[in-house]
């Protein structure tokens, strides 16, 4: 059953379009994440779903009901904000019951709901404190508690972890994931952090310039990005993209780099055959270029490249190399010693290569 259906939504501010014909179908129980750079329209879309803003065109359906003209408070949704938006003059308990008070929920039910949620989030000890007396992580939990108490059809999260420091962010991320697994609610979550997107989502909607570039599960988005934008946006460090020419040799397709010397064997791709003799963009993730003594099933290619710079991160070393005239990132094991200025050999996993049409930027195969 579809929990949220977005159909052909357009939004303009003045003459500038912020959302251009957005279509999205989110199933019940899904953890859908809207991710993209600032200005891509994800927060606008969230506000429109919530009823805080109206679209110029298109429709929103929540739980099968059309939401035209329905006010935010009647949409059976709950929202968690980046700034927590806790009412500063009310206690935690007051914050959680405010919505129920507005709706006229009887006192006994209010108390039950607060106790239930407080136990779930382990914030019973905080119920009588004011927001100013809470830490960042505690405030975030209270904000979630306020949302949980509504027991809504849809949870909306607007960059809830952006205000937390890195360590706290990782903790809260896991808590949110655990909560989702326990309760099984439908979540629409907005973030600019693609790591959050990858770790939390059941499906990711990558947005750019008001359009959805791809809506798929994390694995697909990561390994088979629909276009160059998604390819470069997802993954840190980002996917390497370089211009190559498709050549054919005895029935096997190759991608040859500009220097003419390096040639990579291409995996089986349906549409690649039509591009023989043409220039395309090749995408390969840094973790597919590794230390020379690794082996991959399906054949390993060895290449030689000039090491320009190394960045040891402890768990691995990111190496900037010059391959076929292009600057490319590779990830090697931490104990491999490489020096800038020297030539070295690297193993390439060609199974995960992606090809993109240089004009349309779409994935070829």
């Amino acid at each position: 059953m579809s929990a949220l259906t977005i159909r052909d939504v357009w939004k303009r501010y003045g003459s500038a379009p912020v959302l251009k014909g957005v279509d999205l179908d989110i199933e019940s129980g899904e953890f859908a994440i809207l991710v993209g750079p600032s200005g891509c329209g994800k927060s606008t879309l969230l506000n429109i779903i919530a009823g805080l803003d109206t679209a110029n065109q298109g429709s929103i359906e929540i739980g099968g009901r059309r939401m035209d003209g329905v006010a935010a408070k009647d949409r059976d949704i709950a929202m968690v904000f980046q700034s927590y938006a806790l009412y500063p003059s009310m206690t935690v308990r007051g914050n959680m019951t405010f919505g129920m008070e507005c709706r006229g929920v009887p006192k006994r039910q209010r108390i039950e709901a607060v106790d239930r949620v407080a136990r779930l989030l382990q914030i019973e000890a905080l119920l009588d404190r004011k927001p100013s007396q809470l830490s960042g992580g505690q405030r975030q939990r209270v904000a979630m508690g306020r949302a949980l108490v509504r027991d809504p059809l849809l949870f909306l999260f607007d960059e809830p972890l952006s205000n937390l420091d890195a360590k706290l962010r990782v903790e809260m991320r896991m808590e949110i994931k655990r909560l989702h697994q326990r309760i099984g609610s439908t979540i629409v979550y907005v973030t600019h952090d693609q790591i959050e997107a990858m770790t939390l989502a059941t499906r990711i909607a990558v947005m750019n310039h008001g359009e959805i570039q791809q809506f798929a599960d994390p694995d697909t988005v990561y390994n088979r990005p629909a276009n160059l934008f998604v390819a470069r946006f997802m993954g840190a460090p980002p996917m390497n993209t370089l211009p190559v020419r498709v050549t054919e040799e005895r029935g096997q397709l190759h991608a040859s780099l500009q220097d003419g010397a390096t040639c990579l064997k291409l995996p089986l791709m349906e549409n690649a055959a039509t591009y023989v003799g043409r220039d395309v963009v090749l995408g390969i993730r840094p973790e597919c270029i590794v230390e020379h003594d690794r082996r991959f099933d399906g054949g390993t290619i060895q290449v030689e490249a000039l090491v320009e710079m190394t960045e040891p991160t402890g768990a691995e070393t990111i190496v900037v190399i010059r391959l076929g005239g292009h600057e490319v990132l590779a990830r090697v094991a931490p104990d491999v010693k490489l020096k800038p200025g020297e030539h070295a050999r690297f193993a390439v996993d060609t199974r995960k290569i992606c090809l993109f049409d240089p004009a349309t930027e779409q994935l070829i195969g």
Partner: protein
Amino acid sequence: MPDRTGLARLAIHTTLILLAGFFLVPLLVVVLNALRSNSDIAHTGVIGLPRELTWSNFSRTWSSYCISEHCDGVQPYFWNSVRMAVPATAISTMLGALNGYSLALWRFRGDTIVFGIMTLGVFLPEQMRLVPWVIVLRDLGLFNTISGLVLIHTVQGISFTTLFCRNYYTSIPADLLKAARIDGAGFFRIFGRIVLPLSPPILIVTVIWQFTGIWNEYLYGVTFSAGEQQPITAALIALSARLSEAPQYGEQSAAVLLAAAPTLVVYLFGGRYFLRGLTAGAVK
């Protein structure tokens, strides 16, 4: 600022003390004269120490001093000012908060025009509004009454209080309002449960400024009331303008002190908020 040499610090402190003296002299003079007898002042002038402390100036000024044919002291005028300033301050502040809230957080068509007109209202010279007020008060039958003055000060105060509160309320995070709307709170509930509890700082400043401005006001006070209905500022002018007898500086100083006391006390206790109002108002 980096630390200064000893000589420089001495110069700074000396200058400050001298200037402080210049600023304090009028206050000291008034306080001291209020404690001196009239003969003492007539003898050595306005600037001097009391030969003996005369506390009776205060009681005489309060209840028996004669001001233009009425000999009840400044008491009635003092209470007139109270009856004028307190309601006007309270009402203009409340309405200012409500208006400021609407202008800041509920965008509606024409709100920039309203904002502009309110700004104009703050700067408009008093004299431009004198005669129209005369007509309005006459038609309402409020001419020469304290209620008339309350009306004037309330209506005129709204321009200032609205602008002031509006500037403050624009700093309320938008997310807070979004959360309240999702929770189902409407216009009044948001004002009462969320905005108002956040307002004490600005309300205190507004009350202090309004009270000070209204209490100290003279032109409308003297135009729209007469005789014993006048506020204390008008009484002060009438009091110093007595030409018939020898001036009684002892009582007059006590009168000045009584007239200035309420706003000075407010200033002493609310000095911090006073300052906040100043800097906030100018950073518009």
